């Protein structure tokens, strides 16, 4: 993974010093809250329902064991003993105190971490595919480019006061695990006819109030032009993005209003002027960063490990976990382990300080020192030898980290919702907990099959409900919590937005409603292999409307 050189370290340290000064000025009254707010947001510090919330960047989701231990330390010393992993591969602490935050940032800086630009109207954490560098289907490692973009976007003097937040994602495999089509800029590594790798550039995707799938504005961008091209896009957006209405200020609105083709032409015009300037990436820098992502010293192992095979035969629970949570690694004899932070009845994405410490130890013992964060609020141990899988599983199980539900209905993605968040209309975590308990039987999970369920507590859609196979959106009706259901969304290459099934459900009715939706699917799918998503795409929302609201409603538009 990337290690800071003296320049990276200096920049992060100077930022900590700067924020320390800003906090002091705030507490001394030299800055009002209105003046302080954008400054603290650019350091990831929100004011939420019960307390401040600090969002710490985990660049493209990669953590070393040392960094994980530091997060555990911060959770214990400055928070309430746990942290929350988010849908953008970051971690949040929900109870820091303002005067402590500069010290927290200093502790983070000591292990090459920061909270820079995790909020505010600037370029946010660049996310990537959580299996980058180890996935069997990878074209090229996206992390190199994510790191290059991270540096270019950090404290960019021109783009720190954008109309609104800006999110970039990079994927290096044909199977898009980074949801690039619902980001402000999505980059897909592809190969041209000559076999050279470059970027397919997508712009203007996003969720929230106006969910939109991105538009492809460039089929192939040579790698050395990545930064100049991004700069062109950002400049067009900075100048022309709307600033009169925060709900219309994202680049997706500009792209839709301008039209994809015209927008692409505007970017192209700007880019032509700057592409051969100082943003043209020197090969030396690409190579320098590339070296940090060189594969670790893998052992030469056989593809099949007898101990692993035996353990599966002898222990059905282990065999199941191996089937659901272990993914093929590009190197023989190794495996990618998905660590579920989805214990039924617990908060999706939360990990206690003790669990973090254990994961750091496990990473050192059997994952070559590395842990990753997915944007499904789970973790990954990316480099596990097959022969270590059984022991690893036993230790994960003891720490309640071995839920075998990856990609199933109980592997729920949920934002913090009204239990924590100032923006929320409804709580999402209790709904997630009840649903996970309701769908806890492993045989039921298998029967239902692949099903992505996402819950957002409000229209800001931090739970990515629009791209859930089933999405649940918290809405406010006269101060009470209600839940609107969508079906048929997807965040992958076949990206689509979910469709509303009908009127929202109360807190008491939402779990039965989901149950009805599932039963409708189970009763009517063509065969067990027809996934829920495929079923929805085949039949639309009518069967669900009928089942939920009665036959007469099936032909009417969704009541809102």
């Amino acid at each position, binding site marked *: 993974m990337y290690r800071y*050189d003296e*320049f*990276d370290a*200096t*920049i992060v340290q*100077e*930022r900590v*010093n*700067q924020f320390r*000064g*800003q906090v002091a000025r705030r507490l001394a009254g030299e800055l009002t809250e209105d*003046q302080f707010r*954008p*400054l603290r947001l650019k350091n990831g510090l929100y004011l939420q329902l019960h307390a401040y919330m600090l969002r710490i960047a985990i660049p493209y989701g990669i953590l070393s064991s040392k960094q994980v231990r530091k997060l555990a330390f911060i959770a214990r010393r400055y928070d309430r003993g746990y942290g929350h992993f988010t849908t953008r591969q970051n971690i949040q602490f929900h109870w820091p105190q303002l005067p402590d935050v500069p010290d927290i940032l200093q502790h983070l800086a000591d292990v090459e971490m920061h909270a820079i630009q995790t909020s505010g*109207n600037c370029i946010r954490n660049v996310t990537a595919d959580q299996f980058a560098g180890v996935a069997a289907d990878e074209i090229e490692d996206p992390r190199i480019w994510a790191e290059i973009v991270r*540096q*270019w976007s*950090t*404290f*960019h*003097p*021109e*783009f*720190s*006061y*954008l109309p609104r937040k800006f999110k970039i994602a990079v994927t290096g495999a044909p199977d898009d695990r980074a949801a690039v089509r619902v980001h402000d800029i999505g980059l897909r590594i592809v190969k041209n006819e000559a076999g050279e790798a470059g970027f397919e550039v997508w712009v203007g995707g996003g969720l929230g109030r106006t969910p939109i799938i991105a538009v492809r504005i460039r089929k192939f961008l040579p790698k050395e032009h990545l*930064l100049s091209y991004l700069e062109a896009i950002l*400049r067009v957006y*900075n*100048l022309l993005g709307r*600033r009169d209405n925060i709900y219309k200020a994202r680049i997706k609105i500009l792209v839709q209003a301008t039209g994809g083709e015209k927008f692409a032409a505007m970017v192209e015009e700007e880019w032509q*002027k*700057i592409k*051969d*300037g*100082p*943003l*043209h990436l*020197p090969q*030396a*820098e690409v190579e*320098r960063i590339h070296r940090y992502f060189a594969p670790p010293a893998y052992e030469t192992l056989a593809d099949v490990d007898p101990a692993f095979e035996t353990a599966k035969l002898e222990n059905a629970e282990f065999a199941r976990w191996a089937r659901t949570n272990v993914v093929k690694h590009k190197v023989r004899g190794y495996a990618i382990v998905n660590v579920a932070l989805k214990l039924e009845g617990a908060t999706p994405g939360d990990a206690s300080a003790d669990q973090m410490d254990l994961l750091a130890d496990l990473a050192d013992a059997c994952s070559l020192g590395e842990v990753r964060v997915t944007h499904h609020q789970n973790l990954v141990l990316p480099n596990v030898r097959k022969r270590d899988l059984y022991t690893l599983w036993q230790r994960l199980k003891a720490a309640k980290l071995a839920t075998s539900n990856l990609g199933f209905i109980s592997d729920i993605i949920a934002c913090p919702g009204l239990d924590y968040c100032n923006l929320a209309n409804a709580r999402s975590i209790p709904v997630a907990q009840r649903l996970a308990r309701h769908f806890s039987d492993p045989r039921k999970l298998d029967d239902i099959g692949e099903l992505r369920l996402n819950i957002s507590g409000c229209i800001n859609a931090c739970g990515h409900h629009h791209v859930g196979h089933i999405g649940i959106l918290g809405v406010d009706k006269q101060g009470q919590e209600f839940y609107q259901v969508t079906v048929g969304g997807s965040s992958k290459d076949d990206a689509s937005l979910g469709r509303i099934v009908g009127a929202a459900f109360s807190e008491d009715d939402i779990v039965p409603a989901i149950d009805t939706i599932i039963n409708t699917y189970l009763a009517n799918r063509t065969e067990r292999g027809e996934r829920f998503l495929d079923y929805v795409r085949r039949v639309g929302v009518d069967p669900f409307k009928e089942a939920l609201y009665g036959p007469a409603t099936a032909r009417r538009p969704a009541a809102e």
Partner: protein
Amino acid sequence: MALLQHGALQPNNWRFVGDDAAVPPEEPVTVSLKRWQAENETLRGRNAAVGVRLKNDEEALALGEDVHRLSLIEVEFPKFTDGRAFSQARILRDKLGYKGELRAVGTILRDQYFYMTRCGIDSVELPEDRPIDGYLAALKEFSAWYQPASDGRVTVLELRHPAKAPAGRSGATFISESVAAHSA
């Protein structure tokens, strides 16, 4: 209003004249882009400097070659959250090769001052009673910066690969005096 320039608060001899007001014959004035485009010959014919105050939704490129006839261009930050003028500043420096004084007017927090200088701005308009220590300190808060901008400061990229000459800067390798006076 005074000017923060060359590391100190200076008196501001310039005056912005509205579209309907009379232009004084002997004072340095800035006018709107529209007025400049309509009356630039008369304005230049006076015995005093002339500049343009760009609104932040106007196209900087519209000035074109005229930048070389101006002593001052002002870019606006109506609210500190509105960052359009950062891009306008860079376009004026890098694309049009503007070498005169580039000034920020409007609401300017010390926490933005450094970014303004990186975008090629070399003076800012502040209320006369505003203490400037914070602004000057802000210029020293960072000693390294990743990305090339419009100030000619050496970037981390260049420091990492000193043997490699930069591929050529687009537009000006312009470092204004006041910026250079305060860089670390």
